[in-house]
Structures are given as C-alpha cells and as structure tokens.
C-alpha cells in the first residue's frame, strides 16, 4: 500500500486557498498523492472511496466530528485508522492545534514518515493565518486612512487649519490620550455626526 511509496493524503478544508497552499507545499516536498475535499456532503463516503493514508482537516471545520466515526468498530471501516498523535506526541499535537489543523493516519504508517507531513502542514497553516492577518491589517490601515482624511477635513473647516496643522492636532491628541490616531479621527466623525 502507498505507505512505502508516497502516502495518499486527503486535505479536508472548506477554504480553497489554504487547501491549495498546503497541497502545493506537499507536492513540492515530493508528496504526489494529494486530494482536496472542500465539499462536506457525504464526506465519510468520499474518504472511504479515496482510502487515504493520511487525512488533514482544519479545526474550524465542524465535520471533524464526522471523522471521529472512523475509529468506531463498524462494518463500514475497511481498515483501522488511528489518531496520529499518540500519548508521546504532546508537542506535536500542541503545535498543530495552535496552527489550527488536525491529522489522522491509518494504523501502521511509520511516525517518521508522518512527521514531515505534519510539520509542513503546521508551517503552511501558520503562513496562511499570517497572510490573513496581514490582509486584515492592510484593510484596516486603509479604513483608518479614509477616516483620518475625513477628520482632517472637518478640523480644517471648523478651526480654519491647514491640512498639516489638522494632522498635528490629531496626532498630539492621540498621544495625550494614549489612543490611536484612527480612534481620535473616528470620534471626531462621530461627534460631527451627532452635532449635525
């Protein structure tokens, strides 16, 4: 079975971008048998059909509980499947839960063959959330800039300031009140709405 060649890996993830990033990483590392499942409908049937050696699933996915059925003694199971993380692997399980991913493997696949897959998975998941964070930050920076521009406009009009003076006023107020410039700008917008 695939265990000695390239193990067959199934990625269960409703985020197509993250799944693609992970698949790419696995392929680059030489794991060629990778299948992505993004559709949770009849998940277990799909998995039995694919008969994978390793299943990777994101922790945001409620369907994780569906996978727990694989451990049950049942005529549907073709071979025993066990959670990868055994009693001695506390550090691995911690790292993967932190990264937001969980792994299941078939019984008998050697631990040293699993380790690189899980490590890669953890680093790709972490990279993805970093990317997500940066995207969120960029979005909120853009929002902040719009808010600051509008607050400057109000200050310029009400107090007869130049643009630079308006900005200096915002910045010094923020420093005095230990707040972000964006927050001060937002309170100016709110106040001006109220006083309209």
């Amino acid at each position, binding site marked *: 079975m695939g265990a000695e060649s390239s193990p067959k890996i199934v990625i269960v993830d409703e985020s197509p971008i993250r799944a693609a990033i992970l698949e790419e990483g696995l392929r680059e590392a030489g794991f060629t048998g990778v299948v992505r499942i993004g559709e*949770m*409908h*009849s998940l*277990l049937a799909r998995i039995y059909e694919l008969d994978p050696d390793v299943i990777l699933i994101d*922790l*945001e*996915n*409620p*369907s*994780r*509980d*569906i*996978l*727990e*059925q694989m*451990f*049950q*003694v*049942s*005529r549907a199971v073709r071979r025993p499947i066990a*959670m990868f*993380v*055994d*009693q001695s692997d*506390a550090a691995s*399980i*911690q790292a993967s*839960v932190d990264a937001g991913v*969980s792994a299941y493997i078939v019984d008998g696949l050697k631990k040293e063959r699993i380790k690189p897959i899980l490590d890669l998975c953890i680093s790709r998941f972490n990279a993805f959330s970093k990317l997500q964070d940066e995207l969120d930050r960029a979005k909120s920076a853009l929002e902040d800039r719009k808010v600051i521009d509008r607050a400057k406009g109000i200050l310029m009009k009400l107090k007869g300031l130049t643009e630079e003076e308006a900005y200096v006023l915002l910045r010094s107020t923020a420093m005095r009140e230990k707040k972000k410039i964006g927050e001060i700008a937002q309170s100016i917008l709110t106040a001006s709405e109220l006083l309209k």
Partner: protein
Amino acid sequence: MTGSLHIGFIPLIDAAALIVAVDKGFTAAEGLDVTLVREVSWSNVRDKLNIGLFDAAHLLAPVAIASSLGLGHVKVPIVAPFNLGLNGNAITVSPVLHAAIMREIDGDPLDPMATALSLARVVAARRRSGAEPLTFGMTFPFSTHNYQLRFWMAAGGVDPDEDVHLVVLPPPYMVDSLANGQVDAFCVGAPWNSIAVDRGVGFILHFVSDILVRAAEKVLAVRQSWSEKNPQVLAALIRAAFRATEFIEHNRAETAHILAQPERVGVDADIIRRTLDGRLKVAPDGTIRESGRYLLVGREGAARPDPVQAAWLYAQMVRWGQATISPEAVEIAKAVFRPDLHDAVLGFQQKPTPGASNLVEAFAGPAFDADDVAGYLASLGIVRRPS
C-alpha cells in the same frame, strides 16, 4: 490562585450555566476572569481540554468518560464535578418517517416502546420492499444521543448497526440534512429539534426524558490533574455555575436573551425560551407538548453528578462495542463523576424531587445495576461484540 480561565463550549442551550455565569458576572464576583471560547466540534473541545488550551469545558458526559479510559483517543483523566444539564435531547423524524411510524403504531405515540416496535415494523417493511435502510443522525460516537437512539430502537428489536445506518452529523448540519433527505431522523440537543419543527421539516417524536427519566448529558469537565492543582479555582467556578443555574430558573426571559447573542448560542430567543420552559412545538402544525423534565439545568438536584449515571454510560460503550468490559474500567468511569467535589462546595442540599430516583430509570429493559454491569449487559437482547 490563578483566576484567568479559558473555557470551551459548543453553542447549545445546555451551555447556559456557563454562559450565564460569565455574562451575569458570577464568575467575576468569584474573582475569576473567564474567557468563553465557542467551538465547532466536540473533537476540538476534547483536544483543547486535554492539551491544556482550555482549563475547563462544556463537555458531553460520555466524552469525559471515554477520555479518562483512553477510548478512541489519547487517555487523559477528566473529572466532572458539576452537571451542566440533564436530558434536553429529543428524537426528531422526517414527516415521511413520522407518517410511517404513526401508521404502524399500536399504542400511545408518547410511549417509546410503542414507537420502537412500530419502527421495527417500518424497518422490516422497507427491507422487504428493497428500500435503502433508514439513516439516523447523531452528534458524536461517544454521545448520549448515540446511546439514547440505540437504546430506544434496540428495545423495539431494531439492531442499530445491522438494520439502520447511524451517522455522525455536527448539530448545525442536522436540520438541513433532514430537509434534504440525507437523514430520516436524528437525536440532538436543543435548539436543533425546535428549529427543524419550525422549518416544517421534522416532527419531535420523543423527548429523551421519555426514554430515561434522568440522563446525564453535559458536564463541566476539567482535567483531573488541573482539579488537584487548582482546588480553589474549581470551587469558585462551581459556585458561579450553581448561582447561574438558580438565576436561569428564575429569569428565563433574560437567560433566553443572553443565550440568543450571536457569540453565544446565537439562535432566536423565543426558541430558547421554549426549551427552558420545556414547552416545545413538536409538529409543524403548531402542536405543543410540555414536560417539566425536558431539560433540567440545576433544578431537582440536576447539577450533582451521579456515578451510577457514569456507569450506565460506560455500559452503553460496552454494549455497542466501543469498550471491552473490565471491573477496573467500571470504577474509572464512575470516578469521573465527582459528587464529592460538588458537595464540598455546595453541600448536599439539592435533594432530587421525591419519586424521581437518582438511579437510571429507563422505559425498557432490565433494571440497571452499577455494581453488576456485566450481568446487566448479559440480560440485554441486542448487543455488539467488539470485532
């Protein structure tokens, strides 16, 4: 005493005591700074509790036992000093299956034996006609829902592994799966049964309180090692949860409003209120059924863990091939439920209502004997041998 805690929960009505304890400031009044973390799967709650990302959790009672026995997963001893809820589940069936069961029924539709025998006839008729076996959804392999469904149908002669399909479905997927025919019925906690009825896609056939008088459902779970290192924090948490159960009893409207918040359970306050009142719409035509035992949060001594209940749950694991029987395992299972920890904080003032035995009372089968689990199992008809 470290007062900063992370507690995981699944958005269900029986997380009420934890949610109210935090949102009404009862935990803060005890000097605890609690962050409630809403989770999407029992596997996540279990894993995060096991590895210490959570200090405590709203947990399925059988998962606490399975974890302590190392069944299906890593062995981490868990203790449950406080029941968050007894009962609260219901069996909901599709309109088609409901009609079939009502056609075949001989007796009172509220009598689980009558419905189980009727189900057996429906199952037999489907087999004769070559129809696909019925599919029943439940929430987790080690769940009360799984055992309650199995207990009910087996009493009528339906073998849950041979005659029907039992599948795990995350609770938020239950209603859609019933609507699109992926499942014919399910057993799940509140609010999902009511949502199915409101959407006109299901009939509530039974409250689990029809099947078992008092069924341990969700517990406040902590790691045993944590409980030993943080006895004062645990005591404070138990006090706050208990105060919350009293608040819930006397302020159901406000409780429903608190639970309805999107970051808590996030469903309609009216449905939550009906659940707390035990006054459920059971059919799409608006038929209401009331039961004072539908869901017990705190009242009638519901918060006090009963080791006999733990033994019963362990017996179900053995009955259905999830565990092999041993006298040691029975003792480990019983020791998960800790009335001593409950009593040390709250005393034993919460007497169960007269007439309602604290022991397991089921609608069918031999009386359960926690001191003779093997004998109890030997007297049952349908069982699964581990293969």
